[in-house]
């Protein structure tokens, strides 16, 4: 892997169950607030109402008259995050029109043609109307953002399951380095969906209560919804505009376990490879890491593998999982966690890993249990996914915090 030159991040947008923008999210994280409850937007006939981390029906900036939007909720989440990120970067539509701007978004639900009402009618021999399919076709998350802001660069929706958001940011940085774009909107978005809810329930990896990443009593994950978008800028644009950055993408690595469709490889081979690639690309060492934002879903298998790898490769580096706050937001998770990682680097402290209270003797490493001050200018955020995907970002603090 070649050295990866740093890519400036000049804007961040993030929303999820604990906040409708990045600041609100961080306030909740540091205050230890979470919102986990039975699904409100849909019902199910499961014996257990598996709790989720759900946002209000109306997203930031939406009014009642948007009740029949022409986009899927996933794309609306992505748009809300993109608007916040662009505003944070101080960018207007006119600024973008002069640039080659790419969009790369991760998702799972946002690319799935699985409208249940349409399909029920189809199965019953009715002639379902095509409006849900037309809405799906309009709602590719990257394309929806590109269309909304009239962007002209490459456009890609990454569907790497739960590592999609992390991959999207890493690949977006690669587009910048390769000179394919002046600016890239990179992130992830996913909505809560009854189909996915049934899917995770069928795999028996959901917790009947609020999830407990790395805890001995962990039983599984809580699904969530949200989105995050980062504004990535080319070196020349960043130099010409002379604007302050929020941080840097320093390195990215990804590797496949090649082991099992839904279970992580017990020895963590793929995750180790991805970490090694990201660190090597960033030119950083383990000693440089201020903390790790772990995938930490709360499933027995994920947390076991992750704990072992963290203990082996990064002993002593503090880590946390933020999924206790957000739930598992699937294709958005890696992007949300990258946004939180950058915010933590800015504030030089990380939240307590909510849900963790009792160490598992089988796990060689445990997350932080209280708000913890950190030292250093870079951190690692990692995602593990269905299909054995592992993706890792090394993120740096803005200048002045000793990173770039």
């Amino acid at each position: 892997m070649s050295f990866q030159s740093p890519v400036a991040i000049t804007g961040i947008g993030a929303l999820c169950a604990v906040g409708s923008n990045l600041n609100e999210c961080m306030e909740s994280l540091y205050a230890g607030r979470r919102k986990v409850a039975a699904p409100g937007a849909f019902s199910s006939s499961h014996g257990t109402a598996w709790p989720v981390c759900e946002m209000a029906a109306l997203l930031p900036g939406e009014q009642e008259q948007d009740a029949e939007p022409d986009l899927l909720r996933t794309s609306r989440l992505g748009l809300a995050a993109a608007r916040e990120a662009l505003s944070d970067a101080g960018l207007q539509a006119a600024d973008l029109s002069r640039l080659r701007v790419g969009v790369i978004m991760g998702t799972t639900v946002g690319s799935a043609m699985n409208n249940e009402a349409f399909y029920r009618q189809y199965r019953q021999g009715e002639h379902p109307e095509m409006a849900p399919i037309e809405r799906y076709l309009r709602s590719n998350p990257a394309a929806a953002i590109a269309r909304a802001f009239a962007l002209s660069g490459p456009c890609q929706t990454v569907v790497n399951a739960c590592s999609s958001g992390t991959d999207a940011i890493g690949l977006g940085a690669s587009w910048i380095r390769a000179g394919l774009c002046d600016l890239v909107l990179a992130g992830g978005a996913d909505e809560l969906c009854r189909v996915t809810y049934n899917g995770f329930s069928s795999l028996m990896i959901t917790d009947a209560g609020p999830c407990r990443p790395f805890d001995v009593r962990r039983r599984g994950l809580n699904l969530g919804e949200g989105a995050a978008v980062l504004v990535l800028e080319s070196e020349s644009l960043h130099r010409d505009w002379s604007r302050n950055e929020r941080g840097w993408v320093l390195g990215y690595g990804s590797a496949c376990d090649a082991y099992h469709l839904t279970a992580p490889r017990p020895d963590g081979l793929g995750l180790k490879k991805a970490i090694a690639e990201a660190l090597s690309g960033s030119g950083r060492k383990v000693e440089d890491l201020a903390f790790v934002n772990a995938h930490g879903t709360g499933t027995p298998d994920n947390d076991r593998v992750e704990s072992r790898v963290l203990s082996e490769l990064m002993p002593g580096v503090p880590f946390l999982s933020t999924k206790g706050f957000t739930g598992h937001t699937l294709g958005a998770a890696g992007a949300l966690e990258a946004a939180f990682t950058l915010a933590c680097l800015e504030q030089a402290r990380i939240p307590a890993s909510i849900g963790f209270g009792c160490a598992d003797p089988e796990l060689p490493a445990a997350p932080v249990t209280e708000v913890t001050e950190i030292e250093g200018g870079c951190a690692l955020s990692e995602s593990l996914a269905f299909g054995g995907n592992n993706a890792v970002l090394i993120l740096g603090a803005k200048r002045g915090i000793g990173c770039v």
Partner: protein
Amino acid sequence: MRIAIEGLGLVGGFGFGADALRNALKGNLPSPGTLRFPYGDDSIEAPAFMADTAPLDQFVTKRSLRRIDHFSRMALLGAYGALDDAGRLDSDPARLAVVVGSGYGASATTFAFLDSFIQDGDSCSSPTHFSNSVHNAAAAHISISLKATGPSLSVSQFEMSVPSALLCALQMLRENRADRVLLGGVDEACAVLGYCRQRFFGAPQGPFDPLDFGRQSAVAGEGAAFLLLSREGQGEARYGYLNDVQMGRIDQGGLRLPEKSALVLGADGHQGCGRLYQSLPIQGRAHVCHAQAYGSLPVGPAFDLAAAALSLKDDRLYPGTESLGDRSLCCLKLAEDGNFGLVSLSG
């Protein structure tokens, strides 16, 4: 840096393998099969180019395929076919990346998953169908079967899925993230998609002719097309080189066709996109269209890349016999929403 095309793995209505596609490109076009689907109280049998994955037996045991659906089997066959064609079945799997584009993913399995809980209740949702319905299932099955531990990437951008996937595949090689990349496109035809096509487009109006831009003549297709790629000098460029891929919007002036290139157009019999091809300034420039060989499907550009690669290898602009001479080739896909993907290749 140019990227070498070492091998092709192809399965579709034309059969399996590069020779089967070459045969179709020469004008021995396959006859479409049928796709049957309910349509209200009736059922419809629509023409469709369907893929047969039986040749997968050459590469993997039947037992290992037990829980793998048709969508992923097509992808597996394409991936193994490309490695076999290149003589690289024993490639170092630690440095092999897998990049897959798909317009709709595993559609049939997605609806089979819905069936599982609609029929029997939410608590009877099928975990096997759910895990195989995830968009990256095909890439995962390929990586698992080949033990490929390099990067694995799946993208979904409807008609632009393949140009978009290619963009990242080229970057993986140029950044030395992998020694070889299996780049592929896969999509399946299923009953629900058949219903949707019927509702949106009706029956094809006359014979399938993608160069008749003003007429809706598309016939659905399914299949997988994979290319084994490596950096120039690190593998035998048996099918020439990929030089570049560009993506953007036609209405924002981003589309510039290179001089002295013959064009492989991604037109596939859809009137909506046909209008865009019709407005291209291509009079006097050699251009061909190959959708009659594989049908209309979102990842058609993967088959166009394979057809262009065969043209480079054979120095023949299929379906004709004319030499390419010193011309390069460009594969151009236009989407109805105004996006384009332009891939340039050379010998």
